[in-house]
């Protein structure tokens, strides 16, 4: 969705980063002392979520700039580190958890490249492998066309050898980072889905082939790649459709460039269902066989998850036997029945991912 209203917190310093951003948005900004007028404007809409997607608020990050992914008990977590560069998204996926996560959701851009630099340098000093991503509360590259942040982050990571940056996206916005020296320390990652799901549920995102074209372009510039099949949606003939997506991946890129592929079926907080029903009346995505999971999220009935995972994992392994494929938030039974092993010890999955990152990105 196109930005049609721009708010800026008065205290924000108008440095190169912010002047560049404002000039690119091309809308006269409204200066505010705090977020109250932004919330009021968004909440006054019939559909606050849609309005929030068109209202950009440039602000300072009042919370943690960097933190560990909270994960959940009962399901295995990958020990990811989240770097907060902003919240929410201009694209409009029916299943997007962010719709129900923030009250109201606000499209925030966190100003201050310096603060990002400071926290990252602290992490780098620890001489430990961190997999750091910006795509948990937003899409990593939605602002790439109008912001200096992606380029800044890629350059910052290129100057160290212990950690990797993962930029996860459904866009093809990689122009500003394509020709810079990334030193192999940035993984460009795409969330993938079948053309049916992209067309019907991922409104405003790039097509499957456009995403893979972008991945191919990134690979040609030496970037390491990752793919995320998340959320997998179960629908008639989905197994074949997902297999075709896998076929397509390997038509576009080499298995050796892929650091990891994650897979996870659609899961959602129960209150998201109402949002989807209201905002996406034609979507049938919540009418699968969902049960309440042990983390109080709705998940597909386990045998259905296992069946789809088995198909995908074996198809992926046919192309790339050594490729690291992992589950996002699954339990022992799913791992065992699908992969034949379970990273049971605390940090074991994280260690596997670190190892793959080290191998592909030449970490110390």
């Amino acid at each position, binding site marked *: 969705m196109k930005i049609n209203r721009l708010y800026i917190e008065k205290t924000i310093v108008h440095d190169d980063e912010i002047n560049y951003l404002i000039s690119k948005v091309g809308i006269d900004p409204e200066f505010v002392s705090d977020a109250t007028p932004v919330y009021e404007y968004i909440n006054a809409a019939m559909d606050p979520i849609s309005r929030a997607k068109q209202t950009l608020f440039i602000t300072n990050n009042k919370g943690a700039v960097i933190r560990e992914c909270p994960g959940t008990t009962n399901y295995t977590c990958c020990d990811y580190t989240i770097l907060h560069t902003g919240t929410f998204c201009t694209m409009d996926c029916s299943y997007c958890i962010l719709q129900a996560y923030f009250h109201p959701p606000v499209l925030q851009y966190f100003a201050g490249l310096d603060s990002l630099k400071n926290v990252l340098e602290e992490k780098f000093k620890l001489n430990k492998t961190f997999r750091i991503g910006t795509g948990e509360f937003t899409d990593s590259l939605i602002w790439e066309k109008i912001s200096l942040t992606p380029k800044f982050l890629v350059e910052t990571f290129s100057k160290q050898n212990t950690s990797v940056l993962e930029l996860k996206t459904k866009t093809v916005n990689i122009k500003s980072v394509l020709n810079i020296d990334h030193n192999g320390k940035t993984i460009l990652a795409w969330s993938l889905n079948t053309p049916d799901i992209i067309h019907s549920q991922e409104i405003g995102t790039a097509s499957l082939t456009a995403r893979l074209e972008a991945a191919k372009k990134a690979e040609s510039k030496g970037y390491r790649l990752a793919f995320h099949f998340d959320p997998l949606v179960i629908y008639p003939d989905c197994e074949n459709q997902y297999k075709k997506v896998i076929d397509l991946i390997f038509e576009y890129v080499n298995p050796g460039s892929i650091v990891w592929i994650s897979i996870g079926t659609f899961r959602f907080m129960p209150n998201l269902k109402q949002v989807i029903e209201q905002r996406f009346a034609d979507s049938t995505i919540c009418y699968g*066989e969902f049960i309440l999971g042990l983390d109080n999220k709705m*998940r597909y*009935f386990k045998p259905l998850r296992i069946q789809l995972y088995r198909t995908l994992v074996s198809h992926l392994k046919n192309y790339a036997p050594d490729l690291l494929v992992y589950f996002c938030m699954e339990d*022992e039974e799913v791992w065992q029945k699908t992969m034949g092993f379970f990273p049971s010890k605390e940090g074991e999955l994280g260690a596997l991912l670190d190892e793959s990152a080290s191998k592909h990105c030449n970490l110390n």
Partner: protein
Amino acid sequence: MSERLYELKISDVDLTDIDLADDRYRISHSQTNTALLAQSILEIGLVNPVVLLLVHDKHIIISGFNRVKAHLLNKALTITARVINPETSKQKAIGSGAIKSETIYIDYLVLAIGAACFKHQLSQVELIKSLIKLSVFMDAGHIAHKSGTLFNTQLNQKYIDELIAIGQLQPQGLALLESGHLSIKAAKKLSVLNGPDVLVFLMLLGAVKASTSVQLEMILYLTEISKRDKLSLKSVIQSSEIETIIDDENIDLITKTQQVRDCIYQLRFPELFKARQDVKQKINSLGLGRAVKIEPPPNFEAQQFTFSFTAKTYKQFVRHFNKLTTAVQDLKLKDIFSA
């Protein structure tokens, strides 16, 4: 409505002069036992006169439908009534500046509602009927404002709006509400659906007798199945076992309700239903009886099964324990775990 626009005059009215077919002011359809009422009137007389409105040369009933019926049963010729004469009422209305006929009608309506409230607390159906009649002349906000006077209780505008919407389900919907086949919560869900879907649900819920939560479950799951399969609700029902179960006259209402519920659940969650049935069958085939229980994990998400039995005596304990020990040798038990 601050000043009454009508005058009531007590008189004995010939029962043949009452138009029994005109029930425009009828609020209550309570299942009063007319025979008992007739008997009571014979013994102690009519305590509370009926209220009639003279229309041309006939009277129509504003309050007292059952009392008139009881008099007819007693083969009485007349009934004591408080009669409103529209001519004098009209004069009064003109005098007060309120000459619109609906203003007078509202006053009669309020009288009918007041009389019903006086007899007993209005049932929800009676309340809905009253609100629908009133809503022709007043919006929900106005009714809410006057609700204390009208109904002896304060109603908020949102609730009034909801009840008026439920009122659009009539006549079948209100009949089911009255008979207890449809709960207010379920009716509220139906009131936002389109006409053909409402009729399908009314037919379904009329054929079973389900608790509120089961009614809501049936509505939710069937709506989701219809959206998921992109089929009309009617087609969902017709293309499934549901119709056969409903039409089966040889099963009692409780069994029918359970079978319809299971059938809907199976349509909504086919794999989960199948898994539950399989495990149930395997557990039953172990022949552990009722005393020893095996509970699979809820929805099979976790992996822990629960085995339990209780014993009052040592002998009982040994018996149940031995049953379980025997089951350990049974491959079907192993099978349950690998399901």
